[in-house]
């Protein structure tokens, strides 16, 4: 055995545990799910006939699944930009050389370390029509307006946020932004701290304002970080489940029935594992397509920025 082949053998041995782990716990379930998606696979029925792509064709014709796909896309289209932009702005604020910003960073990170189930319960109470915190705050706002004799800016104080379609989706988006603010902010802060101070000094010498420094120094140099945050946030948004399960169960009127919740209902309420697997592959395809588009778009933008 030559030295080179010995070296290769050792390398394979070293990566074997991780490779086996990935093969057994990641690759094999995906392959098995792919196999299930080609069968009519009811969990309680012994016969599981091969149906080819029939599950996927059924999905394409299923108005409820199309509704779930639409809801997911709406959630991603609204939630992801809001989350990324708000995290970037907060990161810019906590990167200022001010006393006490460390405390603010800690506070912003706290929701991320809480159990999503517990947090969802709290949000249920916050959004309740009677005595809920959201309606109490709106009542306080109304009282403030009454105190200064301002008319026309009052809000209803008995809104059932989780029983009205638009409000229910908005509530889920708000919760998604709130939970993910800390982790995304930390990544942006790390990116901002990696930008050399000399570039800002040069920008000041060129007479740049704070906004122009942010626009022409911070944003371009944060592009790789932004790409990472954008892709991970998009994947997280496509995979939203716990808040939907805890707050709305897909309602009202299926307005928050997102794909992952639809998969859960198909697999564990209707017990149609084959159909649920097919849905999983559709979701995987959606995530891959959108993530690839984001990569392409931002890399293209990066090239243009470099050309400038």
């Amino acid at each position, binding site marked *: 055995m030559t030295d080179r082949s010995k070296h290769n053998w050792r390398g394979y041995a070293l990566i074997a545990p991780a490779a086996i782990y990935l093969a057994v716990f990641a690759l094999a379930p995906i392959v098995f799910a792919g196999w299930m998606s080609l069968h009519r696979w009811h969990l309680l029925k012994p016969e599981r006939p091969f149906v080819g792509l029939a599950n996927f064709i059924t999905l394409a014709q299923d108005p409820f699944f199309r509704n779930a796909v639409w809801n997911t896309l709406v959630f991603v289209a609204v939630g992801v930009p809001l989350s990324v932009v708000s995290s970037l702005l907060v990161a810019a604020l*906590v990167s200022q050389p001010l006393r006490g910003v460390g405390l603010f960073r800690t506070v912003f990170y706290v929701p991320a370390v809480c159990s999503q189930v*517990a947090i969802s319960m709290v949000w249920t109470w916050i959004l309740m029509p009677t005595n809920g915190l959201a309606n109490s705050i709106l009542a306080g706002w109304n009282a403030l307006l009454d105190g200064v004799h301002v008319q026309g800016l009052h809000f209803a104080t008995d809104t059932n946020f989780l029983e009205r379609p638009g409000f229910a989706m908005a509530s889920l988006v708000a919760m998604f932004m709130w939970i993910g603010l800390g982790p995304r902010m930390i990544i942006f802060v790390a990116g901002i701290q990696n930008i050399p101070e000399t570039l800002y000094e040069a920008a000041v010498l060129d007479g740049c304002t704070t906004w122009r420094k942010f626009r022409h120094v911070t944003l371009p140099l944060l592009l790789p970080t932004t790409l990472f945050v954008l892709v991970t946030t998009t994947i997280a948004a496509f995979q939203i489940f716990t808040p939907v399960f805890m707050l709305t169960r897909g309602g009202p009127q299926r307005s928050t029935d997102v794909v992952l919740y639809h998969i859960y209902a198909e697999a564990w309420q209707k017990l149609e594992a084959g159909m649920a697997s097919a849905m999983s592959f559709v979701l995987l395809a959606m995530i891959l397509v959108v993530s690839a588009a984001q990569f392409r778009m931002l890399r293209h933008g990066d090239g243009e920025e470099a050309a400038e």
Partner: protein
Amino acid sequence: MRWLRNATVYALLTLIAASTIIPLVWMVGTSLHPSMAQTPTLSGILRPDKSRFVEWTGDAKGLSPELTVAPDHSQRIEATFVTIESESTKDQPPEPTREQTQVYRDAETGAEITILTHGAGTVRATPIADEAGRRLRLRAVPDSKYYFENY
């Protein structure tokens, strides 16, 4: 103008921090309330309903929730509890004050100890006998539906 910029940054950070932390404060506040209680209001979130023992009256006096009496003669002892209302229930009609009576009869002396309870609580009577003689230990316990046994 630097101070104005810093003040604006602090104001924005404080506003965002408040909106981040308020749901968690709400979570802590709701955890203080009894499991079957109404959803707390904003003003009553940190003041849950609770029951509290107040005092012994009648043939015994005292503020401690524990009282020991000698069963050598008939006595009438009253225990009073009060319910402290939170903002969420203060506008509702008050529950009628509950009255309970229990009688302990001593087998040796035949003395009767009548225990009257006013309000949301009970008195647990435990006979004890040791070198100090036979006695009856009374313990005032606020209702179990309230989490706080606030002695």
